[in-house]
């Protein structure tokens, strides 16, 4: 018995396996936020005047805004003057041209994250793609500067632009200027305004008319350097009839102080275009006392601007101390489609307030929302969604399903689904259930020699299957593993 409980204790206390710090001489700006910091960031990134103006305007607006308090989460007040708003790995300022030029410590980090070697090489732009490996292009954001971008040539052949947003500002200013801030305006909300003022890097994707992106695009985000909030800005534009699938995965080293992460993602889909945006988020959730951990306050919004366009959000949220995230679709084009598939898991003292907004503006627009929430330990979790049908959106259709699974009697699961319907031809359905893992289900598995933890994993994976099947293959496997790791110590 004694050994067993010891083992269990070890299992419960198993530390966050991706928690490590890479010591790089970061080129970090002093903590604090003022116009000078914004000018510094802008100058550092060699940005044109209009973008600086844009940032400053956002900053002016941000100063008039109040931090939102409506989410079902609790955390100590954030001191925005105590955060450093810029940090770049020093050696990256010149841009690496071969693997040798890439900081070895950076490569070490990738290794620890489990990015395969050949992928690392491609990551650094040394080798071309190997025929048999999966077609995944990776744009790595290490702290705030994109270090390397892969598969560039193959993508370039197809006419696809896939680069860091700073590079896009330099190379394709007209595109960035045309679309940046058109989906999430600088004044949209507190965190979006903050992001607009100080965003450091992120990805830019442009798929020209009629092109089907030849591979999945992927970004690994990592937060490094203590006290550096990361403010990415991602912009994806799919022109008429194009198609793209974009993956985003995250993991961060262990920290004792809360780190702020306020990203903005904007998607634009023109006529007949399709964008699929998948996220696996596994940032450091804090220890079992809730110490440390990332604050993930993200604004994600897709604009189905063209007729028959489609935007699909899939997310697996297992990390972060606090998640505040509502990937949304603005269905402007007639016949456009918005989808949202989500699995959110909270364990220990994690809190998540997540959901989506589907704004139906065009005629014959459709949206589907499938949200699965799993709450364990003392986790708190809320689904907050809005389905809005505007007066001109004839024959709009929405289906919403949000299910919660509770593990343990200390956790909470909440549902706040808003529906606003202003058109009589709309058809909306909303369903929600809350349940726990059945004793008989567990007993059945145990009777067949499956350990309790494996049984719980199995049941949880089954619960989430509807969402996992929407993920690209590689991610689906990773997501299942993640759930298992995140649930460690939740049962028994």
């Amino acid at each position: 018995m004694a050994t067993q409980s010891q083992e269990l204790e070890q299992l419960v206390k198993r530390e966050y396996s991706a928690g490590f710090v890479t010591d790089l001489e970061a080129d970090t700006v002093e903590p604090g936020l003022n116009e000078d910091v914004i000018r510094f960031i802008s100058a550092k990134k060699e940005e044109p005047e209009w973008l600086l103006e844009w940032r400053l305007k956002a900053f002016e607006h941000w100063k008039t805004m109040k931090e939102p308090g409506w989410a079902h989460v609790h955390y100590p007040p954030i001191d925005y003057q105590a955060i450093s708003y810029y940090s770049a790995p020093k050696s990256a300022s010149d841009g690496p041209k071969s693997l040798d030029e890439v900081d070895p410590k950076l490569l070490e980090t990738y290794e620890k994250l489990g990015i395969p070697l050949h992928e690392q090489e491609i990551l650094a732009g040394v080798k071309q793609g190997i025929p048999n490996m999966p077609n995944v292009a990776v744009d790595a954001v290490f702290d705030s500067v994109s270090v390397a971008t892969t598969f560039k040539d193959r993508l370039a052949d197809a006419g696809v632009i896939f680069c860091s947003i700073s590079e896009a500002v330099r190379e394709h200013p007209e595109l960035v200027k045309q679309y940046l801030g058109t989906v999430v305006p600088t004044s949209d909300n507190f965190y979006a305004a903050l992001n607009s003022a100080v965003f450091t890097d992120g990805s830019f994707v442009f798929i020209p008319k009629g092109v089907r992106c030849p591979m999945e695009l992927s970004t690994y985000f990592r937060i490094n350097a203590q006290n550096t909030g990361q403010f990415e800005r991602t912009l994806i534009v799919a022109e008429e009839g194009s198609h793209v699938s974009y993956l985003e995965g995250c993991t961060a080293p262990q920290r004792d102080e809360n780190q702020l992460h306020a990203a903005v993602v904007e998607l634009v889909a023109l006529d007949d275009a399709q964008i699929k945006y998948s996220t696996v988020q596994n940032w450091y959730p804090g220890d079992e006392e809730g110490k440390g951990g990332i604050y993930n306050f993200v604004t994600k919004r897709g604009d189905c601007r063209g007729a028959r366009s489609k935007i699909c959000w899939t997310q697996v949220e297992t990390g972060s101390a606090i998640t505040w995230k509502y990937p949304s679709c603005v269905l402007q084009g007639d016949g456009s489609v918005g989808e949202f598939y989500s699995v959110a898991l909270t364990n220990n003292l994690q809190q998540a307030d997540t959901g989506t907004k589907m704004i139906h503006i065009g005629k014959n627009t459709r949206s589907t929302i499938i949200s699965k929430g799993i709450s364990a330990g003392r986790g708190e979790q809320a689904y907050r969604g809005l389905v809005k049908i505007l007066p001109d959106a004839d024959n709009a259709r929405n289906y919403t399903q949000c299910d919660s699974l509770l593990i343990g009697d200390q956790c909470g699961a909440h549902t706040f689904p808003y529906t606003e319907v202003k058109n009589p031809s709309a058809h909306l359905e909303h369903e929600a259930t809350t349940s726990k893992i059945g004793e008989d289900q567990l007993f059945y598995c145990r009777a067949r020699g499956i350990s309790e933890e494996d049984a719980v994993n199995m049941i949880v994976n089954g619960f989430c299957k509807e969402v996992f099947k929407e993920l690209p293959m590689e991610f689906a496997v990773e997501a299942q593993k993640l759930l298992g790791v995140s649930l460690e110590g939740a049962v028994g």
Partner: protein
Amino acid sequence: MAAQISPLLDHYLAEFARVQPQLPGADWVTEQRQAALKRFVEAGFPSNRMETWKYSDTRPLQKQPFELAPESTLSQADVEAFLLPELDCYRLVFVNGRLDPALSEVVDLGETAVSLASALNEPLTSLQKGLNSTLNGHGHALSDLNLAFAVDGAHIRLADNQVLDKPIHLLFVATPGEKAEDEAHMVQVRNLIELGKNSEATVIEHYVGLGEDAYFNDFVTEIRLADNARLKRCRLQEETGKAMQVGATHAVLGRDSHFHSHAVDLGGRWVRNDTVVGLQAEGAEVHLDGLYVPTGRQHVDNQTRIDHASPHCISREDYKGILDGGSRGVFNGKIIVHKDAQKTDSEQHSAALLLSGKAEVDAKPELEIYADDVKCAHGATVGQLDEQAIFYLQSRGLDAAAARNLLTYSFADELIQRVGIEPLRKRIERGLLARLPNAEQLQELL
């Protein structure tokens, strides 16, 4: 602070000073009234920045200062249209909030149902514990306004093991009476229903109005059920087309008690209902049924909150709306399962039918769950009639319009059937029919 009070709130302070001598109650009541008025003035009218008032703008209530409706008398003929003649029941008629004994039929009822005003005037009264005790902080500013100004209401009190043989019909009539041209009246009613152990009662709360003028009806009904008590409560709202109504029902349920509420909103220009139920002891069960049928420029907001504070409680909720014209319906159903309220069984449904392109419905079925061994489900739909059902009826010889009407009617009738009290059910059905297009043709079909 005093300098910052808006003229409108100032009016209510002055109005309170004016009417206070005629308000019933001993000193402790006056103290409660003054405290409530203070809370109201501090909070002011709810604004739609508040989450629970997001979809209901109280500006219509703030357009004019309301004065407490004066005493008025009505003849039997005036209220004849609102009686339920086929129903064998006790009846208490309140005119502008005050009990009119001449119109009431309370023979044999004794102390079971009395006017709240007379009860408040008693020197030693159990009310001291009961009044305002069910709100538990879930009231809003307008409930405080009610406490400050409440003139009367029904106080129903059943002893342990008492089973009422007949339903009690509480009829609340608002009438302009003799009033100056520019005056607008408010009616402030407060009801208190207390059921002893193993007792059983049926109460019909019926709100109606006379005349063409706008008035504001603000009422609060407090319900307290002791162990194993059963209460069936029907609230039928048939206010006039210009009336504004803010109603709050707060119920606290004891062990194994049973509360079934039917709420039907047919009239009123601007209506807001809050129903708050606390399942405070094991085995309590609550059923909330609601039907709202606004048309024209009507606004109906139904807010419900059920607190599962104890294990093994059951809640069922079913709200339906049929919206026509430029009307707006709001439904917010909140279910909170508190920590340790294991084995909670909760179901909630809300459905809305939009008949017009200008109507709007905003629904939010909320769940807040802090216990793991629970069964909670909610569903919300907004939509139109089933095309296949319409086709079926057409293939049976009905024209499309009649088929639609029939299906619309049956959509609501499902809830009305549950009311059970035949004469009341008939009245609701007639009221519903009158609001649907081509009522005569529909009448023939039924």
